């Protein structure tokens, strides 16, 4: 099933800004299994030049001793014509493709994003005389290939046998980006089912809150505490909240890599690319929303700078593309062409006060060595606090049925 993915415009739901009084939520994690796993950066670029190709390998594992199923969404944010610059006549696709996977207990699986994975019980297994065994193992289900030049995210939501979302906290994952011979890797971001929460299994997934479970006018409304539901309480929590603040330590864009310089592999330069996916997504109404992000940066001299930008549906940009010299190595200098040497920065990123949506993100550093080639290194960011306003993922209701054996 395909559809145009847009983000929800307004919550339009009764949400009180009461803080998380009744919801002691642990937030998201890069090292625990969760009920929703998000791969914010999935890129495929089939270039004729092998050195410029980009491919992503997805690894997902069931860490529980029970069968786990998941409903997954690719969101393609590639330009309509990837060969032309972005503009009103060449908008991003924002196209969503979904599929289901099925993992036996403790089963790991993987697939190459450009090819997906077929269901074929006769796949040859790996052996001393057979290295051509890419699809060996229990097939997790039919994983569709993505379009060439795919740029976007992958979200997988744990569901039960009937296809209804559950708080199983059984899924973990990693994404491996391969560019020519270079490789970089990050952990998927796991959103845990709320502790003591009971997922109601409907198509509205509430992150950092729940839904009113009782009878009354507010039945099914998004809530974060029983008081939000009035007579329709209790408020049954579903998933942990998205982070309030993301913290990124990074080299100022364009700064040299000190290790490469010392090894004689200079001149070198490092650029950091940030990839952002929204916590709130509506795969049903496909209403687009922009998220405004505030960046607050400190350098090693404790000097502080700020910049902001907006992201629609999915964003991927180098920090220096934000238009602030403060995020560049060049901008750290008091005197032109004489950098003071404060190469390292700490940047805190949060959704602006007027933006009722959280975001998830990963970073990837590009290390350029002039005499040699490039190397990329993906990294997960740190987080601080949890959003006091829930984020909501809405799935078309008809997708909540099992399509796998």
């Amino acid at each position, binding site marked *: 099933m395909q559809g145009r993915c847009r983000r929800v415009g307004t919550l339009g739901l009764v949400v009180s800004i009461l803080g998380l009084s009744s919801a002691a939520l642990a937030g998201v994690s*890069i090292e625990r*299994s969760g009920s929703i796993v998000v791969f914010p950066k999935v890129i495929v670029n089939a270039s004729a030049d092998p050195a410029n190709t980009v491919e992503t390998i997805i690894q997902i594992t069931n860490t529980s001793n029970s069968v786990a199923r998941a409903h997954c969404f690719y969101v393609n944010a590639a330009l309509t014509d990837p060969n032309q610059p972005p503009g009103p006549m060449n908008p991003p696709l924002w196209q969503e493709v979904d599929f289901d996977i099925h993992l036996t207990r403790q089963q790991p699986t993987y697939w190459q994003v450009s090819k997906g994975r077929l269901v074929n019980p006769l796949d040859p297994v790996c052996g001393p005389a057979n290295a051509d*065994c890419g699809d060996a193992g229990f097939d997790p289900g039919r994983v569709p290939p993505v379009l060439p030049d795919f740029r976007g995210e992958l979200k997988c939501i744990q569901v039960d046998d009937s296809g209804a979302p559950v708080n199983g906290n059984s899924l973990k994952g990693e994404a491996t980006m391969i560019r020519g011979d270079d490789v970089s890797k990050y*952990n998927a971001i796991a959103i845990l089912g709320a502790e003591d929460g009971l997922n109601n299994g409907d198509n509205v997934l509430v992150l950092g809150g729940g839904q009113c479970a009782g009878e009354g006018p507010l039945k099914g409304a998004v809530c974060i505490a029983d008081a939000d539901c009035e007579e329709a309480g209790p408020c049954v929590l579903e998933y942990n909240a998205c982070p309030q603040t993301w*913290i990124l330590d990074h080299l100022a864009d364009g700064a040299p890599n000190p290790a490469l310089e010392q090894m004689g592999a200079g001149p070198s330069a490092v650029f950091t690319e940030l990839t952002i996916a929204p916590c709130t997504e509506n795969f049903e109404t496909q209403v687009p929303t922009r998220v405004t992000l505030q960046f607050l940066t400190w350098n090693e001299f*404790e000097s502080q700078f700020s910049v902001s930008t907006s992201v629609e549906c999915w964003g991927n940009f180098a920090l220096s593309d934000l238009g602030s010299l403060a995020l560049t190595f060049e901008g750290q200098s008091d005197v032109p062409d004489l950098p003071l040497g404060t190469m390292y920065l700490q940047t805190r990123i949060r959704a602006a006060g007027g933006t009722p949506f959280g975001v998830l993100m990963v970073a990837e*550093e590009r290390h350029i060595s002039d005499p040699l080639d490039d190397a990329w290194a993906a*990294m997960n960011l740190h*987080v601080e606090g949890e959003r006091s306003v829930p984020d909501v993922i809405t799935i078309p209701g008809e997708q909540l049925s099992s399509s796998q054996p």
Partner: protein
Amino acid sequence: MRTRWWGVSALGLVLASIGHADTIVSDQPSALLVYPFVAVERNGLGGADTIIELSNTSDQPVAVKCYYVNALGRCSDTGDACFSSLDCEGGVCSPQCAETDFTVYLTPFQPIAWLASKGLASSDIPLDGVFRRGIGGSSNAGTRVPAFGIDSVNLGGQAGIGELKCYTVNPDGTPAGRNVLKGHFSVVGSDSARIQVGKASAVGFRALPEAVDGDNRLVLGGEGAEYDACPAVLVLDHFFDGATDPVSGNAIGTDLVLVPCTQNFLTQAPTRTPVQYLVFNEFEQRFSTSAPVDCFFFEGLSSIDTPNRVRSIFSAAVAGTMTGQTRIRGVRGGLVGTAIEFHGLGSLAAFNLHVAGFRTESDVITVAP
């Protein structure tokens, strides 16, 4: 030229319960950080090095006490320094566990970083307290970071491999338990043809509220806990060694790094714990093996259970599938770690391990009073 300590995987490549918030976090500011992998191999141009990044996420200055543990080994026959037994003429490389400690002072929201091979001299610190001070007069004065490793003739230059632990302290040097530290480490290598970079987060232990008593025993979990507990199980998703990268066609290998949670920097006695490995392939078939860990463990996966790597349960030819899940449990103590994945000889990626559950028994880091 591939560095020796990465050769652990290269050899193989040629041959073919829900976690609670009270165990480690690698994505939240913490009071105690463990950088599980620090390596230096400088032999003229090229080699390998590690960039350590450490940041203060609070609006108040913080002092940080750090311990390097250099687990570079000694050959049993010649006494020469060694990364592995491949560096010895016939003897066995026995890891040493040499500790070096130092203090770093961070001003509010300050990021700082250093190259493991160089450290930070007083002339390198950003806010020296004399000519430069931060807002409110705070500075990095007093910060000194020694270079990591030793000069080794037989290894061709400066060499070291091990871990780094850092925790917040009060002005008098006692543990402070402030959850304001975050860190990353970047493994950087280069040879005449290419560069390699992998980056992962330091493992964080959060101090429990009002629990840190300021003595020289840092109690992780269990009775009298001052900090988060060590995880009960580490979970590693990996390609089996020797699996073919479906994109590049290169052979894939994974090196595993493990560090014990319990350490005694006072007596310098290594903590040995058996480690149980439970391995699942994509057919849900299970294998298991075990091997001990002393003060530091760094091995290619397919070297854990056998010296003949093609016969290892971590070998794709034995496991039968491309990927696996390995669950790692310390028997007599907790563990933290990281993984470094190699695709051919040209590229690497570092990433954090997942965790499941937490240990109910305490692990203790004993520092100098």
